[in-house]
């Protein structure tokens, strides 16, 4: 965040990095982030732009028209997928390319984009249930499996929410959530709701498993962003491992 004593170019740079950070933390590709930052820096009158982005950091060095060089970096920790936000950031950067805003207004515009509309929590809750149910049918479950998967999906949403409030690290959180969900699923099938625990579990795994991240990491690697790709690949593999450990611990323990 820009401080009060920063000079003009630094504030502009901070604003541009805010945009890049928003894109990266909302699930945009590394290439799009670098591309957007480069375009914006050019629009703001810097003559040379060197930006290096990986999934956990952005490093930006620019040369101003008078030859002075500025550098700022950002450390990126948490990422999620909010494509609505990607769209809004994209619209903002298009607008900036047409007519660049002064530094202070840029900050406000970024703030506005950051706090854009999101679906209420109830909608997300029902979508977790719906999606889990739908995917258990997709992988061959019957109606009762779908019902059980929906209950488990709703439960999964609630424990993910409370786990995030506890600020657990993401690997541990995924292990815990999958273990608790497996426990619930075994309980439900013992009570007679749903016949195929494996189909119910797959429905819920679709909500947790980083299949998208794995595919994106391969895409990054083939695209030439090898480091980002490797980071994403490791992260996805570790997360998948954590989820498998969580489910396996319960299933082998209880023989579900």
């Amino acid at each position, binding site marked *: 965040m820009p401080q009060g004593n920063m000079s003009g170019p630094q504030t502009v740079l901070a604003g541009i990095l805010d945009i890049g950070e928003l894109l990266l933390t909302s699930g945009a590709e590394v290439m*799009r982030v670098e591309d957007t930052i480069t375009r914006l820096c050019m629009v703001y009158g810097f003559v040379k732009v060197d930006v290096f982005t990986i999934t956990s950091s952005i490093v930006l060095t620019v040369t101003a028209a008078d030859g002075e060089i500025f550098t700022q970096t950002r450390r990126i920790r948490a990422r999620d997928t909010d494509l*609505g936000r990607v769209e809004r950031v994209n619209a903002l950067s298009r607008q900036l390319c047409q007519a660049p805003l002064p530094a202070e207004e840029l900050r406000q515009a970024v703030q506005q984009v950051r706090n854009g509309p999101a679906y209420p929590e109830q909608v997300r809750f029902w979508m977790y249930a719906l999606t889990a149910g739908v995917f258990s049918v997709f992988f061959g479950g019957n109606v009762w499996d779908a019902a059980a998967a929906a209950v488990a999906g709703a439960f999964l949403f609630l424990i993910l929410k409370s786990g995030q409030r506890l600020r657990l690290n993401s690997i541990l959180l995924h292990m815990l959530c999958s273990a608790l969900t497996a426990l619930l699923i075994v309980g439900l099938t013992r009570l007679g709701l749903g016949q195929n625990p494996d189909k119910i579990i*797959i429905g819920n795994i679709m909500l947790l498993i980083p299949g998208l991240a794995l595919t994106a990491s391969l895409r990054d690697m083939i695209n030439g962003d090898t480091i980002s790709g490797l980071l994403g690949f490791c992260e996805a593999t570790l997360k*998948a*491992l954590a989820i498998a450990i969580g489910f396996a611990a319960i299933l082998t323990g209880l023989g579900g």
Partner: protein
Amino acid sequence: MPHALLQTAMACIGSVGFAVLFNIRGKKLLLSGLGGALGWAVYLCCLHTGQDVFFALFLATAAVVACSELLARLVKTPVILLMVPMLIPLIPGGDLYYMMSCLVQGQYARFGQYAQLVLTESGAIAIGIICVASLANICTGFQKHPRRAP
């Protein structure tokens, strides 16, 4: 055949569900669902005509990405906004789980088989995305802007 139709319908709803979780709004939700169904339908058709998994997934991804590139230009939105939820049914989430589950349970031979399968599947998707996206970039003359100043 009824099973294939059911699966395709579920792919459609599943894509919409994920699109909501990704905070996508309005008519783009509907487009995501249709794209998800299209991808899965292409995949099933390919398998039905005797193609292997790699080629089937590659073609399905190519269809989905081409569809999202076209639609994104029509409704004026970033391509990934449509592409990501449309790809959801094709993503090898289940196999990725089985792979790790075999590893955890010490079934190393099956782990190897699943690892190969997951890499093949996600590789097919990644290559499909890149081929069509590059083609779209060439067609629209994407590189018009200056990437580095002289």
